[in-house]
């Protein structure tokens, strides 16, 4: 399995070699099969955990880990005892940051919102867009324009939404 290690030349991987694997591969070789042991990636190490604990709202999650929550959630069963700390970190971080996500998506002007959004991870962005769509719909309604049917072409430009979103 030497080809997994881009620095190594040997045909086989030595026991104890440290290397980076994609999460899906680590999960397949990891905890149950005991072929590899997993360590927390940099974005979740002690140093960043401290920073997030101090004030999660100001951290640029997009820069740190673009799929912070989803990645973290999949890491939980892989990292042994560290999973407990990680679990708390994930829920605590989302809890602290949701207000910012809510305010920027339901309230802020377009430009300000974009500044905040740049620091959101993927899950936060999804929530942001959910809120933003509702906000825009309400503005349209206030302007008495929500009954105007638009053509498919223009809907596509402005970001398509599902036929009818549930709830």
């Amino acid at each position, binding site marked *: 399995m030497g080809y997994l290690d881009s620095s190594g030349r040997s045909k086989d991987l030595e026991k104890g070699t440290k290397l980076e694997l994609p999460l899906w591969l680590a999960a397949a070789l990891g905890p149950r099969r005991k072929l590899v042991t997993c360590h927390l990636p940099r974005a979740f190490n002690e140093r960043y955990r401290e920073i997030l604990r101090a004030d999660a709202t100001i951290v640029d999650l997009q820069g740190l880990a673009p799929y912070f929550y989803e990645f973290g959630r999949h890491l939980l069963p892989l990292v042994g005892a560290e999973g*407990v700390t990680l679990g708390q970190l994930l*829920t605590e971080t989302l809890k602290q940051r949701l207000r910012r996500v809510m305010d920027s998506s339901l309230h802020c002007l377009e430009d300000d919102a974009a500044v905040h959004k740049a620091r959101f991870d993927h899950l936060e962005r999804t929530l942001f867009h959910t809120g933003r769509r509702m906000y825009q719909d309400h503005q349209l309604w206030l302007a008495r324009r929500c009954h105007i049917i638009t053509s498919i072409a223009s809907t596509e430009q402005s970001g398509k939404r599902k036929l009818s979103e549930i709830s």
Partner: protein
Amino acid sequence: MDAAEVEFLAEKLPISIVPNFAQDKLYLISGDVGPFSPGIPVEVPLWLGLNLRQRSKCRIVIPDWLDEEKLAEKKEEEAQSKVFTQMPCEHYMIVKTLLKDIWDLRISKLRSSVADFILSEGSHAKLDRLTHMEINSIRPFLPHSLDQFHRLAKSAHNTELSQTQDL
């Protein structure tokens, strides 16, 4: 739901009109309306009232809670009160201007209470006195956020469980 749908639902509510025409009872699928006689107030669903007014066939009797003085009082009350005051009509947003101010006050209160709720990690929230359109303004953002939060918290909890079992 989008705002247009909330409005659609609100249009079912009865409103008083003064017609300027004579007409026998109309047997609508949703129920009978009329008879109509010039100058005699009669109750019709809002959608019908709006349609008739558009065709200059009636005048809509303004509900007394829409009186300017009363609304100004209402606005003052909302501003003074920390909690939501009772709205005189479930769908008060159908009419605007002064109402816009009340709306803004209530929405900013709503956002703070949502934020407090998220921080408290409660399992449920009580939302008495919020109107349909107000609830709609945080939907689906708030339920989606909580769904995501709950999903993370559950994964974190499962990790803890499996850790204690391992020991």
